[in-house]
């Protein structure tokens, strides 16, 4: 598909002009890192009227991964770690995976979980299975392949997370005032728009599933503003997303994983928002194979929020939690661009290329 028409400046400006007729103050949250980056990259915040506030929620899998996971991985011996690139600079309390690699830990950056499977044919490999619904079907397929091939030196640390339960948790927090959501495009390809129907029903808040081109985003906002009095879920990304989603992918997830409670860095424990590997495939479950303590909210919470900076590299002043909840924007954190930069990230939102703080650092401040 030729996406150029979705970057047509005339069309974008026409929609932006229409947006200026909307007078109320409104807060819209996006919950997808790729949207966060697209909004920054295309300069959408500066383009639209000031009364329409775009805030970034928990849209990046790296940002919501507890730092204790990194500590556990660094302390593993004799196992090759295969990880997506974003995770390499996530700070744990004793450094990050990139630094651990420089000190001798065998860490491979991969693009597809199947590469980890290949690696495991040469050496015992642990794949760090991080991601939302977009990535999880690929991980599930990889585990089913490992099962079919009867591999013994392959395992997955399942850190998969589900978006809809996180939205539910956010909406149930009375302190958070969000008038509408820009819902993730790629996640929704898998889940379908039905996954969000609880939002208008339970909380009277609507959302729009949209794509990542500038016209997608401004039209998404326009449609969202049009339904404020009668909240609903709108599909602006119909070229990729359906009501029911990709049912084959859903079945693949269901076959390999079961739903569990999960700890989200900055948000805490969210019921039914994580995925653990089913007992039938437990030989591929790295948390069991190596006795990793990734599901302990006590450990994670301590590392995330309350531990003093002397114990943990995650600074006590880090406000990633408030940023993920949309309570403050990154530039309101005292550490932003002073102690916390992409060279020296203190909090997870600065580490991932799609974290809110990294996006603000790159795009939403002056050049200097």
């Amino acid at each position, binding site marked *: 598909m030729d996406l150029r028409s979705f970057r*047509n400046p005339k069309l974008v400006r026409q929609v932006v002009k229409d947006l200026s007729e909307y007078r109320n103050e409104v807060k819209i949250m996006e919950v997808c890192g790729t949207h966060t980056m697209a909004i920054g990259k295309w*300069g*959408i915040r500066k383009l639209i009227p000031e009364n329409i506030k775009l805030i970034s929620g928990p849209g990046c899998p*790296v940002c919501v991964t507890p730092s204790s996971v990194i500590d556990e991985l660094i302390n593993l011996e004799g196992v090759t770690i295969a990880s997506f690139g974003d*995770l390499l600079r996530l700070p744990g309390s004793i450094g990050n995976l990139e630094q651990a690699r420089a000190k001798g830990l065998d860490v491979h950056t991969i693009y597809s979980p199947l590469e980890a499977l290949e690696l495991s044919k040469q050496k015992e490999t642990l794949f760090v299975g991080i991601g939302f619904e977009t990535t999880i079907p690929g991980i599930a397929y990889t585990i089913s392949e490992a099962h079919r091939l009867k591999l013994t030196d392959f395992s997955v640390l399942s850190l998969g997370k589900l978006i809809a339960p996180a939205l539910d948790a956010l909406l149930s927090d009375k302190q958070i005032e969000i008038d509408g959501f820009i819902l993730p495009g790629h996640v929704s390809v898998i889940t379908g728009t039905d996954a969000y129907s609880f939002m208008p029903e339970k909380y009277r808040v609507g959302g729009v599933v949209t794509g990542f081109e500038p016209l997608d985003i401004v039209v998404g906002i326009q449609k969202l503003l049009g339904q404020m009095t009668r909240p609903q879920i709108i599909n602006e990304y119909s070229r990729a997303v359906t009501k029911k989603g990709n049912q084959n992918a859903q079945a693949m997830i269901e076959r390999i994983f079961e739903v569990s409670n999960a700890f989200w860095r900055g948000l805490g424990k969210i019921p039914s928002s994580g995925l653990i590997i089913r007992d039938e495939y437990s030989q591929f479950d790295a948390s069991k194979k190596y006795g990793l303590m990734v599901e302990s909210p006590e450990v994670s919470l301590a590392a995330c929020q309350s531990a003093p900076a002397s114990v943990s590299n995650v600074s006590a002043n880090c406000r990633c939690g408030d940023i993920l909840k949309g309570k403050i924007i990154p530039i309101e954190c005292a550490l932003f661009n002073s102690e916390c*930069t992409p060279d020296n990230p203190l909090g997870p939102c600065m580490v991932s290329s799609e974290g809110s703080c990294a996006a603000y650092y*790159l795009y939403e401040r002056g050049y200097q």
Partner: protein
Amino acid sequence: MKEDIITLGHGSGAGLTHELIADVFHKEFNLPSLDDSARISNRMVVSTDSFVVKPLFFAGGCIGTLSVNGTINDVSMSGSKPLYLLASFIIEEGFSIKDLKKIVQSMQQSAEESQVRIIAGDTKVVKRGECDGIYITTTGIGILPEDVNLSATNIQIGDEILVNGTLGDHSAAIINARQKLMLDPMPASDCAPLYGIVQFLLRTGKLKFARDATRGGIATILNEIYRETKLGIIIEEDLVPIKNTTKVLCDLLGLDVLYLANEGKLISFVSAMTQEMIGELKKQKYAEGAAVIGKVTDEVDGVYLRNSIGSLRPLRMLASDPLPRIC
């Protein structure tokens, strides 16, 4: 977390590399500048570069062609004519002599193309596992014509920024090969000598400064130039030449072409060239896709990209290599 050991980020060519050069090499060697080439007399220029690449052979070239063209280009950017090369090899025990021959033959071919002679070298073999196949270091020597003085200090408001073709081709070829992405058409590296293009631009009388846009891409170079000159720069996204496959790769992995490596592209600052001159430039070898992509301006303070929908965004120096995203 100030790092006390070398990480891969220190080799990215971006912010961490700059820090390392400034903190360690620059300080101890007491160098006048951070360049990878130097003038050792009024007219003699030397430049050196080490080459490590995986895979060793890729579409559009190999470590051999890179090691010759890379150093030829470093010498050429000053306006010098590259004449001689020295080449040193660190080879891993067990490396195939057939492959070594292939690499050395490609080096000789590349040198002949640019009328450069490889005149001396050195070979070391290390134990299996102590290096990854083969590493090559080349040093180039060239002569600078008397009346040529290319320097970032020549750059002025109003100058145009010109590239000689599509950006990001080398990175695209390497990522495609390493990750077996099987992109179709298969991206090929742009590895090529740039001496001829610099000479053409010199003949127009419009050239002020040129740099080969390798590691870190044109965005990193533009930031280096801004740091030195404090002159604002705007790049027009719609004017940046990019192959469709590279664009797809960038969209897929969340990468920005302006930060990807090139091995046969220069970015040059020129005072207004006529359409006729640009037309002539495009007839030169390796400059078919040449385009003016931006300008030096007092509209902004810093380096900015004006995107397709007309908004400006800062184009910063990255700390390290861009990481591909998860989803």
